[in-house]
């Protein structure tokens, strides 16, 4: 069965595929691409190195999309719950594509560029096709939608990211968190964005495919910088309480339920003039029916995705959507949804292989964010 599937589904290789192999990566199909789950040091070592120093992740599977045309920002505001009047040129914003019911089609980063006729999007690999269809359905044909698969994307994450990047690309000191800029590097241009999905300071760097290997190798000449795979990326984002599409958020979940209301422009909620706006406005007035929360199961057994959540009276009240072991805290951690009426409960019970494990409800994130704050 699995062999049949492998023959029928084409899995892409990123420009760093051969390099990952040389570096002894364990490669797995993810979002339609072969990507490293971990390298020789293993997930926990790669995770800890990211929290204390800096790691490179190949995230070239993600979709980089350039949309251009006159008044593109106005057109995108009809789709997304954001206000470009509150996003300066060169700033990056986290947002979601919503359907008419206000549920999440995908979550993404949108860049307001220095060119008022161009916006830049970074979307999830597995959602690329769905997102493009959504854009084509809802954007006037006069706008050009350009999938930039000529560019690779690497994430450099961790407290030593800035010093490592400065050695290669002077001229970015003090770049604000959630901002981006095209920078000349040697004979080509790279797009540097100060953002990431690990809870640490860091950068995502778009690099022409033919230069990504040499750029990565140059970064690795610094002993502070090491490679890290998807395994560490997952445990890092879970500790940081960040939602992963297809797990914590999907077409049945709204951003209000997922605790992402902060990412929606307040004025846009009342005007409700974006796709899904009426549903979001209604949900905000009556309150969401379920909420994403953090759970700390007692003991050492991880409560993974799909684990059912019960109250003390043995009523089923929710489900875990991401769960695993936290290398930073050395305990198991889980995120999941429970009925909104129960969010003030002190304790719930997680059914792990038939055993009801008591778990404390906690606010997200599990590990405080360590984003860069500019000191004036």
């Amino acid at each position: 069965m699995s062999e049949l599937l492998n023959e029928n589904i084409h899995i892409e290789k990123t420009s760093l595929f051969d390099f990952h192999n040389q570096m002894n990566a364990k490669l797995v199909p993810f979002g339609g691409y072969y990507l490293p789950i971990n390298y020789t040091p293993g997930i926990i070592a790669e995770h800890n190195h990211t929290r204390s120093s800096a790691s490179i992740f190949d995230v070239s599977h993600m979709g980089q999309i350039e949309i251009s045309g006159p008044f593109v920002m106005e057109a995108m505001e009809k789709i997304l719950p954001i206000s470009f009047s509150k996003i300066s040129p060169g700033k990056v914003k986290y947002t979601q594509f919503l359907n008419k019911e206000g549920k999440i089609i995908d979550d993404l980063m949108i860049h307001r560029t220095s060119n008022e006729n161009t916006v830049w999007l970074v979307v999830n690999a597995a959602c690329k096709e769905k997102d493009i269809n959504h854009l084509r359905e809802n954007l006037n044909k006069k706008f050009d939608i350009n999938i930039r698969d000529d560019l690779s994307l690497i994430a450099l994450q961790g407290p030593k990211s800035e010093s490592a990047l400065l050695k290669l690309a002077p001229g970015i000191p003090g770049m604000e968190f959630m901002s981006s800029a095209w920078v000349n590097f040697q004979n080509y241009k790279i797009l540097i964005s100060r953002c990431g999905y690990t809870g640490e300071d860091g950068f995502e760097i778009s690099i022409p495919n033919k230069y990504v290997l040499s750029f990565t190798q140059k970064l690795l000449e610094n002993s502070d910088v090491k490679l890290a795979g998807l395994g560490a990326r997952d445990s890092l984002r879970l500790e940081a309480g960040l939602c992963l599409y297809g797990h914590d958020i999907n077409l049945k979940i709204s951003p209000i339920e997922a605790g992402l209301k902060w990412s929606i422009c307040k004025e846009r909620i009342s005007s409700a003039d974006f796709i899904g706006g009426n549903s979001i406005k209604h949900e905000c007035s009556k309150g969401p029916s379920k909420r994403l929360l953090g759970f700390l199961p007692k003991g050492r057994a991880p409560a993974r995705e799909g684990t059912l959540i019960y109250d003390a009276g043995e009523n089923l009240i929710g489900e875990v959507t991401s769960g695993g072991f936290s290398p930073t805290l050395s305990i198991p951690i889980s995120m999941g949804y429970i009925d909104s009426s129960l969010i003030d409960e002190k304790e719930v019970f997680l059914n792990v292989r038939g055993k009801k494990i008591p778990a404390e409800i906690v606010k997200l994130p599990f590990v405080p964010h360590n984003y860069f704050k500019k000191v004036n």
Partner: protein
Amino acid sequence: MTDIYYTKDHEWIKVDGGEGLVGITSYASEQLGDIVFVELPQKGISFDQGKDVAVIESVKAASEIYSPASGEIIETNSSLEENPEIINDDPLVAGWLYKIKIINKEELKNLMNEEEYNKLIGV
């Protein structure tokens, strides 16, 4: 004289008289990666050959352990409760999981010797 046998699911059993010590192979430990939790069977409970008897959780996923032989659990490796990573460090000795009183030595013929197991994993 101790004999060691292997299963296709990458468990080993070291047989000494009527007792067997059970663990997972180096290959399995490497494939699983960082082990963070082990759920061991209770002493006194009996299992049939091939039945799931324990669970090993790595950072990535939970994996069932299948008993290489039928018998009663007579001892478990309690040091794994606090330090499950011992399995990664030393899967063949310090990282043993449990000791079983073997009820039917004939069953061991269903298992592989070292040479056969190495062939299975392509060593």
